[in-house]
């Protein structure tokens, strides 16, 4: 234990006295954190949409309901609404319009108001009938039939009684944010439908209590992923390079000639990296807290996951560094593994934005599960779904430790 403790201290001093190592370990993630935080500090997203309201009366003016719908769109902070004349050829408009930016168009069809009214009446009738059936068992059948008949006289006409109004959303094929805008529009239409039914207080609603109650922002979202990333970089790039360097310059041979055992050397490296990972995570949380007011606090399980990640990735680094004697080649190999993993694992963006086959690739990467697990623990505060990250990093740690022992040239001749 004395030997391991000594080596851990030595490895720490050696790291601390290297400006490059300290920079890449500490300043690099903080710089990333600052950049991403500033980029996303401008509040919510904003989109311009063009609305063509075809639902006009004989006087050429929009019907009340369609006008109300357009106004409600304009009141939404997410949208800037610009109008296109009804009857305008959209293809020609798209060619001739001088508007800059993406041309997203919402088309409100002719008959929109009538369809909404009809659909709304049908829905209300169904609610009334259902209510009568449920609340008053004493109403006799003839009374009930009379009520139904009465309601039927105020129902929609027979031709288009329950056909919903089809609002069309047109967007250029290269519009990357189209799916996001469509999602917002769908949410907006759902709210409009509720209002059309006279439901001011929706009976069911999604609340985002966890996020909103803790005032989480972009930095909170990125922080767990950056912690996972820095653990990866330290393990796969720094440790790989350092171990290869120790092997090639003779430092390791000097240690091998002492009574120190190989497992102690590997353990010392892993412990140093694990403690370093915790220190770096702590510094990042502190900086994020002081500079950006983040509220995420790593709990015991988050700390355990960071430790497990540090063990897995530093053991991988020792394996790679032992395998390749040349420090430069080892660094290149570490970069070749770490950087694709960083960009493909959804650290910087959601993997749902990537092609499906790349999403499959991402899910095969330990970093993906590492930062997903950390985000669940740190942002959502839930343990749901973190068993898999723990299992993957645990298996990775055991596998890479076994490999590190196996591939090292260090031989303990007496076992």
């Amino acid at each position, binding site marked *: 234990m*004395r*030997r391991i403790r*000594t*080596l851990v201290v*030595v490895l720490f*001093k*050696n790291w601390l*006295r*290297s400006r490059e190592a300290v920079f890449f370990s500490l300043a690099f993630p903080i710089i990333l954190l600052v950049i991403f935080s500033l980029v996303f500090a401008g509040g919510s997203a904003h989109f311009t949409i063009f609305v063509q309201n075809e639902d006009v009366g004989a006087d050429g003016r929009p019907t009340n309901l369609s006008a109300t719908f357009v106004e409600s769109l304009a009141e939404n902070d997410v949208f800037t609404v610009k109008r296109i004349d009804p009857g305008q050829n959209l293809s020609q408009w798209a060619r001739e319009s001088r508007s800059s930016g993406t041309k997203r168009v919402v088309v409100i069809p002719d008959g929109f108001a009538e369809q909404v009214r009809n659909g709304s009446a049908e829905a209300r009738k169904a609610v009334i009938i259902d209510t009568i059936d449920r609340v008053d068992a004493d109403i006799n059948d003839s009374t009930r039939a009379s009520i139904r008949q009465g309601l039927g006289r105020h129902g929609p006409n027979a031709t288009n009684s329950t056909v919903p109004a089809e609002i069309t959303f047109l967007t250029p094929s290269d519009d990357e944010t189209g799916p996001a805008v469509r999602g917002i529009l769908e949410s907006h239409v759902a709210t409009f439908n509720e209002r059309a039914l006279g439901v001011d207080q929706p009976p069911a609603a999604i609340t985002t209590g966890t996020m909103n109650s803790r005032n989480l922002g972009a930095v909170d979202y990125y922080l767990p992923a950056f912690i996972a990333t820095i653990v990866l970089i330290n393990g796969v790039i720094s440790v790989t390079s350092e171990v290869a360097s120790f092997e090639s*310059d*003779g*430092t390791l*041979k*000097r*240690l*091998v*000639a*002492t*009574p*120190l*055992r190989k497992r102690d050397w590997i353990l010392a490296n892993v412990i140093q990296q694990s403690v370093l990972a915790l220190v770096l995570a702590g510094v990042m949380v502190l900086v994020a807290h002081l500079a950006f007011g983040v509220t995420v606090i790593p709990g015991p399980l988050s700390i355990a996951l960071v430790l497990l990640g540090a063990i897995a990735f530093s053991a991988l680094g020792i394996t790679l560094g032992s395998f390749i004697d040349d420090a430069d080649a080892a660094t290149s190999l570490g970069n070749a593994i770490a950087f694709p993993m960083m960009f493909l694992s959804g650290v910087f963006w959601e993997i749902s934005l990537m092609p499906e086959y790349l999403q499959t690739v991402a899910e095969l990467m330990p970093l993906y599960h590492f930062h997903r697990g950390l985000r669940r623990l740190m942002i959502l505060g839930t343990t749901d779904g973190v068993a898999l990250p723990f299992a993957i990093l645990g298996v990775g740690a055991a596998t890479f430790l076994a490999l590190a022992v196996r591939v090292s040239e260090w*031989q*303990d*001749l*007496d076992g």
Partner: protein
Amino acid sequence: MASAADPVVEVTDLTKEYGSVTAVDGVSFEIRADEVFALVGPNGAGKTTTVEMLECLRSPTSGSATVMGHAVLEEARTVKEHIGVVPQAFDTFDRLTVRENVALARRMYDDGLAVDDVLDQLDIAEWADTRFGSLSGGLQQRTGIAMALVSDPAVLFLDEPTTGLDPAARRSTWRQIERLANLGTAVVLTTHYMEEVEELADRAALLVEGSIEAVDSVDALVDRYGGDVKLVVSRGGDGYDDEDGDAAEDEDGTGTDDGDAVEATLRAAATEVYRDDTGNLVGLFDDRETAQEAFGRVHRLEGNRSIQLTTAGMEDVFLRLVGAAVDRQGELQ
């Protein structure tokens, strides 16, 4: 504590094979306490492989070796407690100071010496707080020796300890090794510098292509294989430059073939004639009288050349046994 005559290292038929290549081929020797033992040979002779087996860094293919009575294979950890090692092309943590590096080495052992005492002993206390990476080659080498000595080893292995050092640093390292030997530590020195062997070693083993050609005290080796006297013929600082055996330059304008004549004279009288690594023509003689006669004849032929009668050394031993000299880079000529 072993007495001076006791072997601290015993090697019997030690062999190391890498596939079809035999790096060390059944070598046997003993190293006694209090002696400096040199393993001498050109690059690739198997010196480093041999000592690395004794340092428990490589496992032998066959044969056996013990250090302080402990088998290097089965009791490696115990053996390591008794040895100090300065590997070839030694390096350690560059960003740690001299004292921190020596302290690191000390803490790898259960017993040992005080760090500052070792720094004093090796005259590097002045640089104790200097980072290892900032030191000169000579001071780095002394730090390496300090790291190896701090465990108070019975046997100290120095693998090519002066390779790459300038002459001043080399001499300084030699003085440190001499001091160690006087303190009672057995020193195992691997080197291809023959003058280093003559300067430091009590006994030496000549290793060529994995096999030991001879092992004995340096004096006995020189007596037996080096001849008593050697005559060195050189042309000032430029050496004897008639290396291809053709006629030397006709500097005196007489038209005589001086180079051939000198070499022929030497070959007629000497037991061995060769060129050393600086191009000098060297003749070995079994007795001083014959050598002096040859000296007179060569002097008459080549008055303007530098001619020197000197005692034979390890270089001559090596040449006699191997048939070729070793250059400064350790390659056979």
